[in-house]
């Protein structure tokens, strides 16, 4: 009963204190609502960009701008690059793009685009660079694809030309071979030509003609002699007539022979002339034939050389052809983007809030857990009833546990509400591993509640507690992935972040909610959380023990500052006057002369104001009494007393009425 009563009392106090009730009930819901509104959209960035182009109109610039504009970027044109950069500084745009003058595609063309970004926005700058660069890369890739396609077409055409050239060379080579063969044959024929005539002796012919003529003469003579002898032998018989004829014939022939011989002589002379001319011609022909053979030889060599060259050209063309064939990639797309990448999420969701959800949930648990439990303890410590709690026969640990349970219950309800709302709105399968997720959430809740409790016990005031809570929460946040990637931190800090309960809890929750991992895979981290919790329990009990001693010392009933300040009996003694209450202040102030007054109220001190502050705990009155002028002080205390009198009168009347 006692336990429940304390918890119930804590809950009532929290709910009845307007500010804490607002924080407790609406704080987390407000956070989640804001975060939900902010992040419940596809993972795109609504970026605005400014640009400056020196050209009044440039199709290439326009094409780039059109590309980004089509992707829902807010685009603002600036009149100068200074104005464009100024736009970033003023927060009007996220990036500034400066296009070059005469921006165009070409070898010597000025095609360098300058991007200006604000690196102080560490959490966004890389997304901005990545996002804008992506849009520009798309357009650049399109242009690159066109250029590459042209290049590929030319290569294809060249390949066809080379093929045709190879064929021509082959034909040419065969023609050359044929020519070489023909030349060879011609050459050998020419070389085989015999231009020698031998020795034609006209004199011998003449001699032979003369001999024939002399033989004919001799023959005629011998024939005549033969006929004469035949006649002699045969006498005048018939046959003698025939002989006479033969003789006549021989005589006739013989008579003709000189003429023939003369003709022969003439002919021989002619032949001799002709032969001489023919010889001369043959000589000339032989010389020319030799020249021809020589030239044919040269031609043959040239043709051989030509053939060799043709072979070389052919080989080169074939090599070129092979190279062209070996290019293999014939698609411009493949050359512009030889490697195709596709970034796939390891989870199916595409909503930023789902990705952020584990981190946000632990963030809420962390801040509410720390703030709530520390506030609860400070509320109790600063409460006037703290003293009465100590006077009851209740062990310290009872209050520690009840504070923990109270904070835990509130935080648990908040987490349930948050999870319920998230489940309803996100409509995602978040709780496939419900048991493990619950264990992690409960452990992290416990850790942060215990941290908050330790802060509450350490801190002396609400302000100190709040500052300490925020500071510790911020350190946890800073040493996590939420603001800066852990990977960018120094090795030491990186190692420390492994023990950051926020990092451990949120990473575990991410694994269970998003990656649906099972307990076996993450038992070490869960164990680490359990160790954290155990350590924090010990710390809380130790800090509570120490703070209890401090609290007793700070108790308005007991104060150790050289002497005891006890509001009820710590009277102020000024000269011979004793101030017991506020009325006495007025009385004594009136009684003191200026010298006495200055002894106690001067530039260095104001004992009356100090007493009112420290003993009466009337800080407002003390503040008002901080005058160096007695008259003003009297006026202040008079007004104060009148106010109290009026209040008392009112209460009295009220009581009488009751």
């Amino acid at each position: 009963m006692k336990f429940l009563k304390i918890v119930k009392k804590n809950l009532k106090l929290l709910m009845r204190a307007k500010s804490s009730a607002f924080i407790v009930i609406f704080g987390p819901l407000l956070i989640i609502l804001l975060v939900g509104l902010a992040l419940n959209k596809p993972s795109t960035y609504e970026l605005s960009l400014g640009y400056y182009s020196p050209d009044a109109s440039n199709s290439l610039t326009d094409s780039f701008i059109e590309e980004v504009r089509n992707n829902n970027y807010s685009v603002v044109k600036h009149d100068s690059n200074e104005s464009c950069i100024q736009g970033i500084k003023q927060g009007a745009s996220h990036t500034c793009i400066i296009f070059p003058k005469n921006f165009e595609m070409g070898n010597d063309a000025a095609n360098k685009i300058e991007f200006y970004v604000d690196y102080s926005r560490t959490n966004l700058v890389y997304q901005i660079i990545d996002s804008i660069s992506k849009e520009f890369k798309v357009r650049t890739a399109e242009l690159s694809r066109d250029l590459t396609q042209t290049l590929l077409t030319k290569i294809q055409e060249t390949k066809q030309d080379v093929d045709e050239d190879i064929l021509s060379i082959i034909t040419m080579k065969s023609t050359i071979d044929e020519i070489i063969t023909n030349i060879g044959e011609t050459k050998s024929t020419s070389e085989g030509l015999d231009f020698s005539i031998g020795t034609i002796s006209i004199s011998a012919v003449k001699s032979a003609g003369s001999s024939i003529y002399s033989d004919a003469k001799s023959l005629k003579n011998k024939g005549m002699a033969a006929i004469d002898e035949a006649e002699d032998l045969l006498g005048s018989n018939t046959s003698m007539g025939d002989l006479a004829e033969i003789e006549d014939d021989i005589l006739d022939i013989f008579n003709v022979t000189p003429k023939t011989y003369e003709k022969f002589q003439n002919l021989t002379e002619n032949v001799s002339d002709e032969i001489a001319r023919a010889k001369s011609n043959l000589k000339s022909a032989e010389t020319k034939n030799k020249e021809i053979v020589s030239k044919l030889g040269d031609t043959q060599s040239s043709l051989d050389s030509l053939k060799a060259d043709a072979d070389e050209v052919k080989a080169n063309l074939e090599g070129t052809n092979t190279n062209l064939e070996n290019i293999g990639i014939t698609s411009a797309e493949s050359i512009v983007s030889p490697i195709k990448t596709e970034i796939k999420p390891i989870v199916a969701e595409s909503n930023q809030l789902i990705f952020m959800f584990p981190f946000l949930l632990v963030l809420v648990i962390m801040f509410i857990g720390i703030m709530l439990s520390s506030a609860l303890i400070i509320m109790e410590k600063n409460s006037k009833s703290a003293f009465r709690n100590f006077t009851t026969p209740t062990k310290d640990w009872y209050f520690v546990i009840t504070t923990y349970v109270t904070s835990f219950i509130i935080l648990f309800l908040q987490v349930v509400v948050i999870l319920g709302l998230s489940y309803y709105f996100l409509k995602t399968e978040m709780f496939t591993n419900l048991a493990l997720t619950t264990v992690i959430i409960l452990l992290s809740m416990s850790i942060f509640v215990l941290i908050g409790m330790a802060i509450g016990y350490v801190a002396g005031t609400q302000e100190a507690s709040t500052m300490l809570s925020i500071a510790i929460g911020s350190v946890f946040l800073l040493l996590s992935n939420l603001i800066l990637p852990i990977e960018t931190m120094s090795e030491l800090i990186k190692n420390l972040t492994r023990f950051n309960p926020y990092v451990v809890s949120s990473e575990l929750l991410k694994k269970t909610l998003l990656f649906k991992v099972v307990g076996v895979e993450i038992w070490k981290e869960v164990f680490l959380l359990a160790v954290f919790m155990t350590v924090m329990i010990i710390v809380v009990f130790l800090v509570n023990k120490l703070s209890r001693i401090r609290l007793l010392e700070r108790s308005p009933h007991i104060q150790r500052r050289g002497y005891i300040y006890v509001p009820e009996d710590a009277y102020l003694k000024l000269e011979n006057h004793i101030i017991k209450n506020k009325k006495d202040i007025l009385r004594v102030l009136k009684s003191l002369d200026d010298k006495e007054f200055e002894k106690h109220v001067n530039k260095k001190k104001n004992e009356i104001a100090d007493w009112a502050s420290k003993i009466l705990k009337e800080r407002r009155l003390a503040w008002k009494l901080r005058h160096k002028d007695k008259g003003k002080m009297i006026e202040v205390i008079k007004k104060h007393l009148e106010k109290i009198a009026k209040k008392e009168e009112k209460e009295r009347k009220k009581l009488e009425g009751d």
Partner: protein
Amino acid sequence: MTEPIFRIRNITKSFGDHLILDDISFEIRKGEIFGIIGASGSGKTTLLNIIIGFLRPDRGDVSFRFEHLLDFQKAMTFRSVFKKQEAVKKIYGFASQMPSFYMNLTLKENLEYFGSLYNLSPDALKTNIETLLNLMDLKNYEDLAAKNLSGGMERRLDIACALIHDPAVLVLDEPTADLDPVLREHIWTLVKKINKKGTTIILASHHLTELEDICSRIAILKDKKITDVASPDSIKNKYSKIQEVHLECYPGNYKKILAKLSKKYIKNYEIRGSHLVIHSNKPQKVFHELFPILKKKKEEVIDMKVGKASLDDIFIALSKDKKDEIPKDSKKKS
């Protein structure tokens, strides 16, 4: 004479180098209303806190007789409050000048809460709440948030919280501080009522005149020691040798008058508003000196009287007195 229930023996307490209480010993009897008076910083509240075992002394002991125990032998034995903290907490209730309850809880909720810390059964708790609300005249406000209570009601609720477990001893530290006379009277009436039920009451108050009427015995704490523990009448008789000379005159240059007076008859003086109060064991001598001075200074006497010093005056004299200038031998006159 009733038997003692608290026995305070040789209590010495220092905070740092500052000695607060030095070898204090006295007893508190069952059923009495025991008052503690002392000057500023004399350590009354420290003494109260030590008596209830809330503060440990450097030396000495406070023992209590747990007479509520059924075992007679045990009930008659004095036990150190420091060794039996949890048990001691059950037998006393503590109410101080500062209200010690939750402002955002109603009266009934506060009583229920503090009652539950004493492990009272629901029935007992209900009965106690009912009784206390009636006793303190707070029944009509039981569902009112404590923050809406007036000063007097706050004090009554605080006392009710201290009494929720029906303690054998009620410790009241300045129960009427900052209250107007009507409310003070109301509180003292309540204290008497509580005491009549058999509750021993230990209290410290600076309204000494009121203590005079209510306390059975009073302890005077002076110079870190208890100088006297006696009934108010005994104390007054002891310190009644001093008388007060009250003078009111016009224009009232009391400083100049005092400068002319012979110091040997003046134990102390105080200017209270338009009055000059002179403590003296020879008031007639003071009068004798005063008349010529007043005449010489052309002071017109408006009022002049001689009276016995009240307990308040004795207390003030005690608190001012650093060299044993305690007024003695005074007789009240008007």
